[in-house]
């Protein structure tokens, strides 16, 4: 019986972290779908968001909600700057150049952050009630529940945005075909810019949520790497798939950590998503919901 409670507890924690992965993956897929850019700096956007929010809360003593909104505003400005001055000049360049530029961007952001805030781990002031919740024999910190709810709220908001708003529909149209979207007067440049904004915003939210659980330091950017297994699992060009992929990776990561850590002496959690990544690439390279590209020779 204890076993089942343990399992449930792992799943709940995994869902919470996974929902954040899903949120960040959404941003990643948006950029990919709109502009075919694989953004290797996604994790750094997340890290920057967490640091900016932390600085506002601790250094400038801004109340949480104001700090949170300011962080989102900062992310939007950062995204617009990056899109306008780094990526837009690259439109039409080979994929490899664009990948290299996002890797370069990630290094620049990391260096900025470590030169301003150093590399020490910093504790995020608690934004959610900390007391653990007991249900049956499950003991879960409330933080996980709130984290899950917070990312779900954002996911639902964005889902509604894409389903019903005219800009959302225009963005999906542009993702479907840039050229046709252009022919109906949809500004594709604007769509690129908005997808970067959304990506930066969801990343910042993700950074704040994870930072709140694990503390903030430079390795927070590694969450960006965990988004890869999530989006590959879901299918690189499926938003719903990315979110689901995030949830699954979160759960699998936590389960493998919970069950396998004492065999390997810890750290399984960090490796598991990438083992899963390799397995998916071998058996289902287009992911669960991705478009299979059919090439006829």
């Amino acid at each position: 019986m204890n076993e089942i409670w343990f399992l449930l507890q792992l799943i709940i924690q995994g869902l919470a972290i996974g929902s954040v992965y899903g949120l960040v993956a959404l941003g990643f897929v948006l950029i990919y779908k709109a502009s075919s850019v694989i953004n290797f700096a996604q994790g750094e956007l997340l890290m920057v968001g967490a640091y900016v929010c932390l600085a506002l809360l601790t250094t400038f003593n801004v109340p949480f909600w104001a700090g949170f909104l300011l962080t989102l505003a900062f992310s939007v400005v950062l995204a617009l700057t990056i899109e306008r001055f780094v990526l837009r000049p690259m439109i039409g360049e080979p994929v490899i150049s664009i990948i290299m530029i996002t890797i370069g961007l990630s290094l620049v952001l990391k260096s900025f952050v470590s030169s301003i805030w150093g590399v020490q781990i910093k504790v995020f002031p608690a934004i959610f009630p900390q007391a653990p919740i007991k249900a049956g024999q499950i003991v879960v910190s409330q933080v996980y529940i709130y984290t899950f709810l917070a990312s779900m709220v954002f996911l639902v908001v964005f889902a509604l945005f894409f389903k019903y708003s005219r800009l959302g529909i225009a963005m999906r149209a542009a993702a479907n075909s840039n050229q046709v979207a252009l022919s109906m007067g949809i500004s594709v440049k604007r769509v690129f810019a908005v997808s970067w904004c959304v990506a930066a915003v969801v990343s910042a939210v993700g950074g704040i949520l994870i930072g709140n659980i694990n503390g903030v330091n430079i390795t927070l950017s590694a969450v960006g790497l965990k988004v890869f297994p999530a989006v590959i699992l879901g299918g690189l060009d499926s938003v719903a798939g990315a979110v689901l992929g995030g949830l699954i990776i979160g759960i699998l990561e936590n389960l493998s950590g919970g069950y396998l850590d004492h065999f390997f002496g810890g750290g399984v959690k960090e490796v598991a998503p990438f083992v899963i990544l390799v397995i998916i690439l071998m058996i289902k390279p287009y992911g669960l919901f991705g478009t299979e590209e059919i090439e006829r020779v």
Partner: protein
Amino acid sequence: MEHTQPTEQVTEPKEPILSLNNIEVIYDDVILVLKGMSLVVYEGQIVALLGANGAGKSTTLKAISGILKGEEGKVTDGSITFMGDRIDNTDPEGIVRRGIFQVMEGRRVFDDLNVDENLIAGAHTRNSRAEIKQDMEMVFEYFPRLTERRHTLAGYLSGGEQQMLAIGRALMARPKLMLLDEPSLGLAPLLVKEIFGIIQRINREEKTTILLVEQNARMALSIADYGYIMENGKIVLDDPVEKLRENEDVKEFYLGLSKVGEKKSYRDVKHYRRRKRWLS
């Protein structure tokens, strides 16, 4: 090139809405596709632009709608005027806002958006939600078949329905001038007839001027007021359709009719065969 519309035309005298004056289009900085192309469209007309594959018909439309730039092509010479304004350096968004909407070749609906969402995307440049809603009803009146498929993803529609959606989506922008690129492509003859009937209705009822590019010359000439024939990047012949339909060359090359028992030199025969390949 100056084109004068004959006075005996049935429709009333009109304003030129679009004119292309000697335009030259170059792709990739080297490939010359349009070589001094000129064409005039008068308000309220249906103008057909006919010609063989690779003559430059689609390029002409893209030059007008401004999407040429995305394909490494540009207008290097000449001018395009729409309702008195030069538009040859306007971006596609500006062109749509001015009232020109291109229905691209091969239907090109947004596969993973449903019918309603495709229509909303078409109305991107408009502001009033109420008007958009009203115009959606108008589209469903023209294409009742789409009504029951409103929530179906466009990728699952049949070819004919997709073409209807592509035209309906164009209507959503309330264009003054609609550019249609091969609406008959890959459709069954009955469906082609239906769609051309609707194009004609749109022209009459919505007062939308239409510039139509077609391979199906017979169909195009049956609904058009004026026709241009294009070869190798320029216009070689233009006339009201009544005259075009009587033109021997047009009959032979474009309508698949030829005089019986007429002597031809070997060169003509070869020429004829070469041209014959694309006839429907």
